[in-house]
């Protein structure tokens, strides 16, 4: 009896499992959970060894307040000059990186893990400038992106950013959770 019941439900179980697999995969591809990172990048060494402590040095803002996101090759080559030295004993001189040669200045060879769907209007500048009464920031880069500054690779460390994470923060900070705050 029990065996026949199991046989009866097997197709349903398999179907559900495949269905969840496909929807998970679709969700991942929309949110770019496996984004291409063609050039390796070591956040830790840039931050700790070479003293770039401000994230906005590379991930800055446009003049109208929109977040630039990933830097372009032009921003990398401002330090790693295209006609610079390949090797040097002096640690403070940024070397020339031959891997930039095949890219134009406007290229962005990385894709973002944190890509949000089209219906989300996320404003980095508003979230990053929100302050408590005593002047502390309400959110830091790490609260959503994880400890990216201490990472040595380009792996995703905090997972996909789902709406629940945004709403949890908004609830905890007594901010408005109305749909139109982020969605369009």
């Amino acid at each position: 009896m029990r065996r026949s019941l199991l046989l009866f439900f097997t197709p349903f179980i398999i179907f559900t499992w495949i269905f969840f697999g496909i929807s998970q995969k679709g969700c991942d591809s929309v949110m770019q959970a496996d984004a291409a990172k063609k050039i390796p990048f070591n956040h830790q060494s840039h931050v700790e060894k070479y003293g770039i402590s401000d994230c906005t040095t590379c991930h800055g803002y446009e003049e109208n307040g929109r977040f630039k996101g990933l830097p372009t090759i032009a921003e990398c080559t401002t330090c790693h000059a295209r006609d610079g030295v390949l090797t040097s004993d002096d640690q403070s001189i940024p070397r020339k990186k031959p891997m930039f040669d095949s890219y134009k200045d406007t290229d962005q060879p990385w894709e973002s893990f944190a890509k949000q769907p089209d219906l989300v209007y996320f404003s980095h500048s508003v979230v990053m400038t929100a302050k408590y009464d005593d002047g502390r920031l309400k959110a830091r880069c790490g609260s959503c992106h994880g400890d990216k500054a201490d990472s040595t690779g380009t792996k995703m460390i905090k997972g996909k950013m789902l709406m629940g994470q945004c709403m949890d923060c908004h609830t905890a900070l007594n901010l408005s959770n109305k749909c139109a705050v982020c969605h369009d």
Partner: protein
Amino acid sequence: MKEKVKEVKMKRRWGMAIDLDKCTGCGKCSVACNQENNMPIFEDDSDVPKRVAFLELMKVTNDRDAKFPDVKTAYLPKMCQMCEGNDPKNPNPPCVSVCPAVATDVGDDGVVSQIWSRCIGCRYCQTACPYEARVFNWWKPEYEGSFKKSLSTDVSVASRGTVVKCTFCSHIWKRERDAATAKGILDINAVLYTPACAGTCPTGAIVFGDLNDHDSEVYKLTQTDRAVRLTNPVDDVKDADKKKSLLKAKQFTNPKVYYLTSQQWLRDMMRFKKNS
């Protein structure tokens, strides 16, 4: 230790005043709205059930059979009227309560939002709307040639089978807020914006602003005798006590879009009164 976080309240209540005496019916507001909100292009825009447009420019005449000296015409740009119900502090538009998917909601600034990606296409809200301000996407949105590349990135394209409507260009408010924070203005209530239709109107017939701010142009316009709201019978009641009891007894839409006109026939028509 539980920290006390100060709540930032939105004080704005966005509203609109449209001067029908100034409106020439050029249709620029409609074009600007379609472009700003990524509306699809159809072969035949006169095909009303197929067309998707937030702002409909209606031509109104006093009588269909009227002959030359008696015929009167006016143009009426009709978008979502942003109903707030009887109590502005606790807005209750007819479309919000019927939505089974919480796709439509009232924001803190009184704007009735619609998230088309969340919409399941049941069209209850379209039935509930007394102004026919909501439209349903019957067909897949299509764009000619390379038009798709020029779409606004701030607004998502509504897919087939969803209900869409005007949201007072709330993405422009978000954009303006970004620009304000870049300049160091962190107060949420300091951000002002203009929707596409109001910004493009060549005669200045459409005025947009904050109804809570009693110095704003739109508030002053709504307080004049010319102001009339579309089919909101409670506006006709002059007696204050009677008005109060009416508001207690029944829900009214109380739209935040005001029309200004001095022509009596048009005022009567907008209140569904018989032509005098």
